[in-house]
């Protein structure tokens, strides 16, 4: 969010080290993407650990993955995709100068994100009461190679937890954006914060697009049993 706080009802001005608003926006966009690339590598390390252990203990991963609820996972994926759509529409509303629509779509994004985390909390609770959290009381009923199933659940909680923490950070930024948008801070000439946050939100969506098949969809046919 590199631009100066824009005085309301005035034409936004590029900072002095930029030639014009367009160049300033390009710089913001590139900066945001570079940040997202560091995020790719941040999550990438966990994905690497996942693939390494999955190929080492395929039976443990297959039976542990069947402990997740496929229907809830698919439903939650749908909820998150909906929030990505409302985010894209919020950016579009900003670009076309529809102030009330920006606020509406940002609030919808916040609500859908909240619904996603609510479902996630329910899933975590379910895992907790079934002793599927790695630790002293861990057990994996009817699992093959049960000694290695904590690896799956450690990665499950680590990856979905890191994903969820990104969403929680997103909520704080969303609340700020909703407040600013309500004051009319974003115009078709300058709405960089909304657009940059959109990139962040869609990135978090992409992470989930990979987490869903990797965590929920291993050996659902039960062939390995």
């Amino acid at each position, binding site marked *: 969010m590199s631009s100066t706080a824009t005085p309301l009802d005035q034409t936004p001005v590029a900072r002095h080290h930029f030639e014009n608003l*367009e160049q300033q926006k*390009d710089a913001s*966009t*590139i900066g945001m*993407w*570079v940040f*997202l*690339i560091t995020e*790719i*590598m941040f999550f*990438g*390390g966990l*994905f*690497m650990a996942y*693939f*390494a252990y999955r*190929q*080492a203990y395929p039976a443990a991963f297959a039976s542990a993955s069947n402990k997740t609820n*496929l229907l809830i*996972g*698919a439903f939650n*994926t*749908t909820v998150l*995709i*909906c929030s*990505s*759509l409302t*985010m*894209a*529409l919020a950016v*579009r509303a900003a*670009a*076309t100068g529809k102030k009330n629509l920006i606020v509406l779509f940002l609030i919808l994004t916040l609500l859908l994100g909240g619904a996603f985390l609510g479902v996630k909390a329910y899933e975590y609770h379910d895992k907790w009461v079934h002793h599927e959290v790695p630790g002293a009381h861990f057990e994996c009923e009817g699992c093959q190679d049960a000694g290695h199933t904590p690896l799956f659940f450690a990665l499950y909680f680590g990856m979905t937890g890191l994903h969820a923490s990104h969403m929680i950070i997103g909520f704080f930024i969303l609340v700020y954006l909703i407040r600013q948008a309500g004051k009319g801070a974003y115009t*078709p000439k300058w709405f960089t914060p909304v657009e940059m946050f*959109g*990139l962040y939100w*869609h*990135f978090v*969506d*992409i992470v989930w*697009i*990979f987490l*869903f*098949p*990797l965590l*929920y*969809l*291993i*050996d*659902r*046919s*039960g*062939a390995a049993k």
Partner: protein
Amino acid sequence: MAHDHNTGGQDENLTEHHSEHIVPIGIYIAVFLALIVLTWVTSGVATLDLGRLNIFVALSIAIFKASLVLLFFMHLKWATRLTKMIVMSGIYWLILLLFIVMMDLWTRGWMGVPGR
């Protein structure tokens, strides 16, 4: 200005001087529906026994979905070439990480280790 870039029939100037590109709502809705349908397709296909193909189908669908989000929701299709190059370099680096480590893990059993 080179003319080797592919913007899908867009105006040639668009990638160099990206004027504010307003994406039609129809495109967002179409991408959204595709993402929803693919989510349920990948869930359904996972319940079939395709042997080793299961993981490849699941990851192919995920990569396709991620590409839709990148290109349309994240406006990469209309981004400057510098931005596109930066994004591709990031993805390339991730592939290096995954591919090189997996090559090691996959091929370890192929040859005996002297002394073991």
